């Protein structure tokens, strides 16, 4: 199967005057055609930055220090090597993006029509009438009940759910190959979240669009994605199919996360919880596993960084427990973890 997007060895750095901090490290990911790929992680894990890096929209203080992002359009292109002009042709046309905050993601001073048509004006040479018609059609497709009226209204006149629908319409209007959705439902209520996830599913199938869904909510991943990468402190710690992840999680962090959510139902015992706090880029350990300080299985060898180990098929986990050479009787594999 051909890949739509292939990220290899991506690193993102934050450069302050005095020191450079690594934010995202050795990030690898491959999205195939029509695949729905999820990245899940807690706040500060670097998941959103990765999506901005793909779009080449990182804030000025951050930069890609290493790696390639290969996109399959007519030919294979490395997005990190494109000129600003070439990159603009990709944005909105080949890759579109929707954001977390529907309330602030639209320009308050222009009508929905203007902002919808703007994408078409940038990437196509259609007539005004054609663009307007297509805009109307898109609004119908995203399930807006009074599309003609909505076209003429301003963002502040719409609810959060409606705006997110407009954002989806705007993202899909040029039939992109990849849709990046960064926490698209986090700011919305559950009943609206269900509507929006449904809509994204239907439309991506209809348009042959692959999806990269970024979220902190494992439930959303389970409902929508095929494959998933779990991020912790700027690194992917586990990568596999969604089914594998939920039935057979292997990284201690993933296990902990799933355990703490699953134990929510059981009132008889304490909730399972991962001890300690989420680290920030300023206190990432230079060496070794970034999860070691919170890991119940931490061993002395965890002071050295583990590789991404293949467990079975294409299920990968970044943990010493899965290294073949591990001998639990050896001194360097002595448990030092809590719990």
């Amino acid at each position, binding site marked *: 199967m051909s890949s739509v997007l292939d990220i290899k060895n991506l690193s993102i750095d934050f450069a302050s005057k005095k020191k450079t901090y690594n934010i995202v490290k050795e990030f690898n990911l491959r999205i195939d055609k029509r695949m729905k790929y999820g990245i899940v992680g807690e706040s500060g894990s670097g998941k959103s930055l990765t999506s901005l890096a793909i779009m080449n929209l990182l804030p000025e203080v951050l930069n890609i220090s290493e790696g390639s992002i290969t996109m399959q359009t007519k030919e294979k292109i490395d997005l990190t090597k494109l000129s600003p002009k070439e990159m*603009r*042709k990709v*944005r*909105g046309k080949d890759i579109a993006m929707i954001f977390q905050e529907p309330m602030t*993601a639209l*320009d308050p001073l222009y009508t929905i029509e203007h902002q919808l048509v703007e994408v078409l004006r*940038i990437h196509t040479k259609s007539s005004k009438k054609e663009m307007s018609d297509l805009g109307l059609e898109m609004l119908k497709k995203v399930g807006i009940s009074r599309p003609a009226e909505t076209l003429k209204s301003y963002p*502040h006149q719409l609810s959060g759910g409606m705006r997110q629908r407009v954002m989806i319409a705007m993202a899909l209007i040029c039939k992109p190959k990849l849709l990046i959705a960064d926490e698209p439902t986090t700011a919305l209520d559950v009943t609206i979240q269900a509507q929006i996830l449904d809509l994204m599913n239907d439309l991506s199938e209809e348009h042959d669009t692959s999806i990269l869904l970024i979220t902190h909510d494992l439930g959303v991943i389970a409902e929508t994605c095929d494959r998933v990468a779990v991020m912790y402190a700027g690194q992917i710690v586990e990568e596999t199919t969604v089914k594998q992840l939920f039935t057979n999680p292997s990284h201690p962090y993933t296990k902990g996360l799933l355990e703490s959510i699953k134990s929510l139902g059981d009132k008889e015992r304490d909730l399972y919880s991962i001890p300690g706090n989420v680290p920030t880029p300023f206190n990432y350990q230079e060496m070794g596993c970034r999860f070691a300080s919170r890991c119940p299985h931490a061993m002395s060898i965890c002071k050295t960084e583990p590789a991404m180990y293949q467990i079975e098929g294409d299920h990968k986990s970044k943990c010493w427990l899965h290294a073949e050479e591990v001998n639990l009787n050896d001194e360097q594999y002595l448990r030092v973890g809590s719990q």
Partner: protein
Amino acid sequence: MLIPVLFGVSIVIFIALRVIPGDVAATILGTDATPETLAQLRKNFGLDLPIYEQYLQWIGGVLTGDFGESMRTGKEVLPDILDRFAITFELTILAAIISWIIAIPMGILAGIKRNSKTDFSVRVISLLGVSVPNFALATVLILVLSLSFSYSPPVGYVGFWEDPIRNLQILFLPALVMGTSMAGAVMRMTRSSILEILRQDFIRTIRAKGAKEKIVIFDHALKNAMIPILTIIGLQVGVLLGGTVIIEQIFSLPGLGQLVLTGINQRDFTVVQGAVLFIAFVFVLINLLVDLLYSYLDPRITYK
């Protein structure tokens, strides 16, 4: 909103001027006035009435377009105010235009190219603009011009309709001084508004659509930044109106500011209260205009 504020202004001015120590009548008649003539003159001015009656008389007149007569010259105040306002207004508008021409493009440029050399120089220039008082700038400019071109400020004033070219020659230098010294503040405001807007989420959305920077800046950032810039412009026009007091003095222009100044020096109540009320009226009017422009620019604001 407008009307209560103006009433407030009129009351404040009126009461303030009535507590001024020093008696107009005594000032006018000099030291050799007899108590009888003083009383007579006070009566002529209505100064013997209780203060609220004086106020009602005056404000009643103002509402019907009668600002009263000058206590010094006996001339009607309103025509004088209007004549002089023409000069002050022309000066203010010229100065405002000059400052906008300089400040807005430079502010935008600095905001877009943040931390560049352009940005740095704009910031230095604007800081100087804010720090050099207009009267200092005017004095130094006249000094330099007189030393190098033996320039001297023109004597006598010619109205725009009499001789537009001569009129503009006279007003150009004072307007330039006021305009440049105001440009600093407008420049900073423009720059920071642009920076603020460029940080907004929707700018990222537009970039994610693949829009050229030209569209991002001109269609979206600028239009949004115009709202805070307009506020500043409204306030700055007020500063300019007040600033004319000094500039008119330096360049000997017979404007409204000069009228206020002589009025104060001569304790001519009717002139001062009329002129100040008029300026406040214009200022409030300009801010109303700015508000109306807002609702035109921003669909979120409606005035019903």
